[in-house]
């Protein structure tokens, strides 16, 4: 089999997969943000009222051409429809290349939106080269006879090798790959992590701190709760020897086994009170078993999390209290 024919044949699955992938990522982006406007990208070239219809047309066209390339690849559909789909694909990429050049000149801050929210980086020369390359790839498929059934054995090495090489080239020209890799390895700093209050309270209720001091607490509902950087503070009203007190818990904001600190404060004077030995209630066997079941060891621990720090506090700290654990208890 001639090398040129193999190269042309390889373009069909490559183009189809890219078109369908592009359409799918846009759809995911739109569904997640519940707005077609989310898939902005190159539609920023148009006036506001045209952006939504242009985004819909773009996505539909990509999907239709991707499916069309697959359906017209074999012997089922031949002739004019086949070439029309391939010509349409080439035209799409040519128009996309021109649009990206225009977008780069007029809105250098906007990404192309080719692969949904993965394409938020400003349009670069790589994105332009990719689009032009795919336009050429589509053009050389025009007039290609129906694709042969997949080769077996040694004969399959050549088309697979060309496909892999082209895929690597497209990946090298795609800024989205870098963005995807960043997201895969991304761990959000604890200061920016969104942790629901219910989750914090649930973690607190499972902790040994809670069990120790539950006897003092007089209400299930916190009197106050607020967050500062990596900590959420939960205050419960309580009573100790007839005096109204407040129990303050600082819970570190992470998914599993958060570090917790606690203090007992006189509700009237604000003085910090020493912990009362009588207020400690050891955990029952059932509690321990339940705790083990509910709180598996953390699989991932963000680098910004504090260590367990079981030791006693060591005097005034020089760094932010919110990022330190000096007297932490991990249940």
């Amino acid at each position, binding site marked *: 089999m001639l090398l040129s024919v193999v190269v042309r044949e390889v373009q069909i699955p490559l183009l189809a997969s890219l078109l369908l992938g592009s359409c799918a990522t846009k759809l995911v982006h739109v569904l*997640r*943000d*519940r*707005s077609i*406007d*989310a898939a902005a990208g190159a539609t920023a070239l148009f006036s*506001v009222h045209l952006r939504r219809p242009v985004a819909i047309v773009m996505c539909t066209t990509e999907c239709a051409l991707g499916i069309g390339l697959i359906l017209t690849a074999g012997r089922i559909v031949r002739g004019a429809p086949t070439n029309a789909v391939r010509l349409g694909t080439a035209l799409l990429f040519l128009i996309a290349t021109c649009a990206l050049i225009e977008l780069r000149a007029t*809105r250098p*801050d*906007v990404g192309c939106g080719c692969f949904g*929210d993965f394409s*938020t980086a400003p349009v670069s020369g790589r994105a332009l080269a990719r689009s032009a390359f795919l336009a050429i790839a589509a053009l050389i498929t025009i007039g290609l006879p129906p694709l042969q059934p997949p080769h077996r054995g040694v004969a399959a090495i050549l088309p697979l090798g060309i496909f892999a090489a082209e895929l690597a080239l497209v990946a090298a020209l795609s800024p989205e790959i870098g963005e995807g890799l*960043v*997201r895969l390895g*991304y761990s*959000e*700093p604890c*200061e*920016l992590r*969104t942790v*629901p*209050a219910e989750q914090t309270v649930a973690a607190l209720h499972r902790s040994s701190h809670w069990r120790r001091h539950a006897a003092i607490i007089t209400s299930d509902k916190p009197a*106050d*709760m*607020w*967050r*500062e*950087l990596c900590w959420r*503070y939960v*205050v419960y009203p309580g009573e100790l020897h007839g005096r109204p007190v*407040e129990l*303050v*818990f*600082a819970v570190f904001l992470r998914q599993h086994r958060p570090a917790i*600190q*606690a*203090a007992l*404060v006189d509700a009237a*004077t*604000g*003085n*910090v*009170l*020493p912990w009362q030995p009588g207020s400690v209630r050891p955990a029952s066997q059932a509690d321990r078993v339940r705790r083990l079941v509910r709180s598996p060891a953390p699989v991932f621990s963000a*680098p*910004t999390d504090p260590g367990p720090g079981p030791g*006693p*506090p*060591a*005097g*005034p*700290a*020089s*760094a*932010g*209290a919110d*990022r*330190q654990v*000096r*007297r932490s208890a991990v249940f």
Partner: protein
Amino acid sequence: MPDTRADHACCDRCAGGATAARIARRRLLKAAVFRPADAGADASPNPGTQASAGAADDDAAGLRPQSKRARFATSGELPRAVTGTIIDVSPHFLVVGHGTGEERFALTPDAIAWRGGPLDPEALRPGDQAVLRLHKRARGVADRIWANIGRVTGTIVERSGEGLLVDEGRTRKRQFVTIPPRAAGRIEVRFPSLEPGYLIDVIGLRRGGALEGLIPATSQPAYRVDQMPAPALVSGHVPDAISGSATWHEPADKPPGVLGVAYPALDPEVGCAEGTGPGIPGSVRMPYLSIGSVLLVRNDCTGSSCALPVTSCAAVGRLFNDRCVTCGTSPRSRVADLTQASFIALGGELERGCFNATITIGG
């Protein structure tokens, strides 16, 4: 005129009458949790002095080293702002009436007033609502007066022949802005899209319940609010100090002299965030705080700084991705929305709208 009362729902734990007490209590409780090891029960903080002094509990809470210098501003150190209604004015004196009675202020020879533009103080009229900046050392002397100044910052929700209806976020009332023909050119140069969905930030004169927009406070972001660019991912720790633009807001239903800051990234749990998508939009991701957290705010133009408590949320501030160019060009994003009194105390000029600022969390 469209109804400006619509959709005004104050969020939980945002500014209100009990804010000051809550701030003091939270600082006390936080200090109790993070108190040093050698501080026994006897060394417990006194709630009466905690909120005002601010330094002792900062140390106890293990805040950053600079916290030893930073504490809440006192009237003896920074210019103080007085708000009231002008009762009488002469070339050398000004009498202002406010909630506690009348107060007479001498004017410095170089005192300047503003009412839509610079003017001599004697041109002010009785009945004008004025904000006075008092001299640093002489408390009974005013050197700067702003009359009837107002500001509207938010998203345009409706445009009519009379003006614009602007949504200032979930915690504030909607505002109506009129733009007189003499200011239209100036404003439209900086705000080319005065259409629903776009942001606006104008300074002008209060006339009844509406604002007559005269000065653009910034340049309009190119995006609609529902098409905000996604913020960049942040790895590792968020930096201790964040630079950007510090703006001011009108007191609305709060006392006018409050020293505080509206922070654009309050804990999502309190429901102060703006935007339509999941999460909180914004060009810069800022660490989450709550009412009562303390920020050390520094005016990079004058070098003044003071520790201010977070008193409310600046939900709309997060939607702006602008820079302040009062002295040099600040990094993008609004890091603090100060009360008028705080803005003046830190050396800001209200009609300028912003100053380049650096905030340090924990103060």
